[in-house]
């Protein structure tokens, strides 16, 4: 992949693209209550690639969903940039997701009726804006999809579909991109390509990416890894290697 030189980091007042302050998330009530998140306070640094890891049921996906405005915390506050999103109405939250947040899910990222190109500019079109053609073109080239732009998702491989999703996440120049197990359904080669692309967007373009994963190799692409257990952040690691993460996870009992 070619280097990304045209990324411009969004200018924000703080160094955190998203942060959680004392966030709790409880499902159910009384004896049946499950605490998915327990008083989590964490900041996702702008311009960095953060990975969130933890065993199944540790609350890592819940944290991502809460930070991304897809789910509401039971207690605490969540900020995207300077905006406190915990109290936002659904409509405002939706507009924030549309304009300031990019998403890559594990699967089913694309609308089957739209071509790859149409999927990439979907949030911009939903907003009723005209996409910046040169910008979109540069992303498309970077993810290597120029040849497949006018194909429907069903005609693309899993890896290609995830790269389209990543291109879409970046197309609207969001404040932060959230990726939920983006390589979970990919083979290792396709996964590596996608991760390299996300890493490039951060290193060369100054983007902010937050990714949930259970794969130590995927986590090794990040600048920083947060470890979650039982809804709490128990540790973190900077400039991780796959081996270090793997060993740490083993100790966590994952």
């Amino acid at each position, binding site marked *: 992949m070619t280097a990304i030189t045209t990324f411009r980091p969004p200018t924000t007042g703080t160094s955190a693209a998203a942060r959680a302050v004392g966030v709790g998330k409880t499902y159910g009530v009384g004896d049946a209550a499950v605490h998915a998140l327990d008083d989590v306070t964490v900041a996702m640094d702008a311009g960095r690639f953060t990975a969130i890891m933890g065993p199944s049921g540790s609350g890592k*996906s819940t944290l991502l*969903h809460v930070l991304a405005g*897809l*789910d509401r915390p039971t207690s605490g506050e969540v900020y995207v940039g300077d905006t406190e999103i915990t109290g936002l109405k*659904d*409509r405002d939250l*939706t*507009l924030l*997701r*549309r*304009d300031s947040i990019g*998403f890559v*899910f*594990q*699967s*089913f*990222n*694309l*609308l*089957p*009726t*739209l071509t790859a190109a149409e999927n990439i500019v*979907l*949030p911009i*079109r*939903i*907003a*009723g804006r005209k996409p910046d053609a040169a910008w979109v073109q540069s992303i498309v080239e970077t993810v290597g999809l120029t040849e497949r732009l006018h194909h429907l998702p*069903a005609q693309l491989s899993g890896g290609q579909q995830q790269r389209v999703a990543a291109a*879409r996440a970046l197309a609207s120049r969001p404040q932060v991109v959230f990726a*939920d*197990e983006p390589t*979970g*359904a990919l083979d290792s080669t396709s996964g590596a390509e996608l991760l390299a692309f996300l890493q490039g967007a951060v290193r060369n373009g100054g983007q902010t990416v937050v990714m949930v994963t259970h794969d130590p190799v995927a986590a090794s692409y990040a600048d920083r890894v947060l470890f979650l257990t039982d809804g709490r952040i128990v540790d973190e690691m900077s400039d991780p290697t796959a081996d270090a993460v793997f060993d740490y996870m083993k100790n966590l009992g994952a």
Partner: protein
Amino acid sequence: MFTATLRGMLAHKLRLLLTTASIALGVAFLAGTLMLTDTMHAAFSQLMGGVSSGTDTVVRQESAFTSVSGAGTAHASLPESVLEQVRQVDGVAVAEGAVSGYALLLDTGGKAVLASGGAPTMGYSMTADAALRGDVQVRSGRAPSGPGEVAIDASSAADHSIALGSEIGILFRGPSETFTVVGTVGYGGQDDLGGTTSAYFDAPTAQRVLGAPGSFNEVVVRSNGELSDTALSERIAAVLPAGTEAVTGAAVAKEASDAFDESFSIVGAMFAVFAAIALFVGSFIIWNTFTMIVTQRSREIALLRAVGATRRQVLRNLLGEAALLGFGASAIGVVLGAGVATGLTALIHALGFSLPSTSLQVLPRTVVVSLVVGTVVTVVAALVPARRATKVLPVEALRDAAPGAAAPSRLRAAVGGVLAVGGAAALATGLTGEVAWASVALGLAAVLVAVITLAPIAARPLARVIGAPLGLRGMPGQLARDNAMRNPRRTASTATALMIGLSLVVGMSVFASSLKASFEPSLETATSADLFLMGASLQTDGFSQEAARRAADVPGVATVSAMGWGQARFDGVDTSFSSVDPATLEQVVDLNLTSGSATTLGDDGVLVTTDTAAQHGWTVGSPIPAEFAATGASVLQVRGIYESNALVDGYLISAATHEANLPNRLDSTVLIALDDGADLAQTKGDIATALAGQPDAKVLTPKQFAAEGAGFVDSLLAFMTIMLLLAVVIALLGIVNTLALSVHERTRELGLLRAVGMTTRQVRAMVRWESVIIAVLGGAAGAALGLGFGTALTQAAKSGNMITAIDVPYLQVGIYLLLAVGAGVLAAVAPARSASRVDVLRAVVTD
């Protein structure tokens, strides 16, 4: 395996509800129709049975056949001498002469008391013996006695505030007279005889004003109780002169209720047609539902197949589900049918028809027929999707891919194409030259089936075109269009349901509009009359001949030519005839005689149309066997052959021949030509003044005369449109069903859209636009098809005389299309709401 079936059905409540509703509504209409007809039959039989319950035997002239409609009585009158003969018979307790005939009540203000909905206005003699009256009982006051007294039915008295002691005018075939109301009459629990207005006189008065002195219409007999009615009738018959018969009162009651059944059977058949349309439209929804059930369950079915279920078992399972659904929905439909029957009764009343009432009749036959029809329709509609389910390969259980829509087959295109071309050819053949109705009907049917067959192929390109303007509405618009094009089969069958209903509505509108537009020009061609007299209500059989006599005396009137009508059997076929005035007919009606003359009709002649003459090879002088109810078989001679037109058609006989063979003739239309130089408005005013005492007739200009006909067409059209709306409503339920299922299928897509920033408002708009595309597709196709059908039918009818030009009501069709759009928006409300409430997380998280 059946437990799985039940659980599957209950798992999707909305789908179950909508599919059930679409079947239940059609079945409800069917059941309601049956209940209505049975109830009417029971009510009328009860009423007639009650009226004749005091009469054991009726003596009357034999009738060649029972006439069910038309002015005039079916039985000739009896001489008074018969009464004495009957009284001598052993076993007769009481015998009295009875007379009936045309009598129109006026209220105290001199306005006509018109009978509702096709019922006659009658006068009767009231028997002196109270027991002979049966259920015809004096409600208040007393029975009439003497030349100036009358008792009237309770309905007329109440509705027109005619109090006891009032002086009211009554019109007869002869001069009108004034009477004092001394009593009101009820009929068991009813206030009138199925809408008929009735005036009762004592026998001598009735003879004078209704019939002829010295004769009766019949002799009614009460037995002394020693003999059965049948035995008494036989004993009486033995002493009667030839041509006179004695029948039991029960038999006469049955004749009356049979006649009612026969005339009501047309209404019943019409309702049945609407029920069939509703069921047909409903079957498309069933088809859709089962297609979706099969699609959604393909993995489950594949799993069943993988663990060893045979294709037959899968098929049986699905058809069992269809049968269960159909049976349950039909049962609901039967219950709803009671409501439909009540609603239809109200509708009939609202249209001005008075029907006798009784408790709602729900016969076992109604329940069985409704359940069987509903279940069979459901199973048949589910057959194709169920068969498709059997083709699911076991390996598909292992695949995750969402089942895509199969491309429309070439066979479908071929079959549809052949049907379309064949249908068009049949239509063209049928409409060229002599109209071949069978060919036209076949052509229309073939075209309809072709359109339904080709719809899945045409749906995608059409949705693209219809949705094109939505591209301007941003992403939600574009996605709506994509979604509508996505499963063309489903879009097609949903739209087809709407198309069928709308095409019928539009087709009828075109026909009715052309008919209305043709009244005036075709009337102008047919007659040179300056003014017309017609009945005060369109639904009466006619009006007193007194009106024509009075109009003739008005200064400025040159010619008065009266026309009447009745029923008889000509050349072995029951048909209606017109009776005319031979002396004046040709002065006001353009007969275009190819041979013969109307003036030579006399009392044994008949004019026939060129078509009839050609068909039978008749020429002037040919004898035609004719049979009248009152006088039996005779032979009439062809005296002329004429071109039928908007005013005259069929067999024409002279008024004298009519009167001689079917007593109590009334006028139905009177044509009036004015002197040269007479002022039209002035003369019209003078005639109206002359008719002041004859409110059963009114005077009209040709334009007004045509407008009366148009008004009648309008009310019929309104009635049919209301009936067809049911089919449209079912079609809308189908759109709701399709949208709800689509939303359910696309939960993940909706979640994704919401995650990447689509607002709930945009989601709702997306579903709404998809609905509008389907509705416009169905609406536009329906309008186009309806315009085609209407034009073809109108073209075919142009060979007759009623329609001269095709008139397309574009404004009306435009309004229907707008309504279709509105309906689409309405149908989308609930599905759009559920789409906007999709749980974003559940949709995007892979579990």
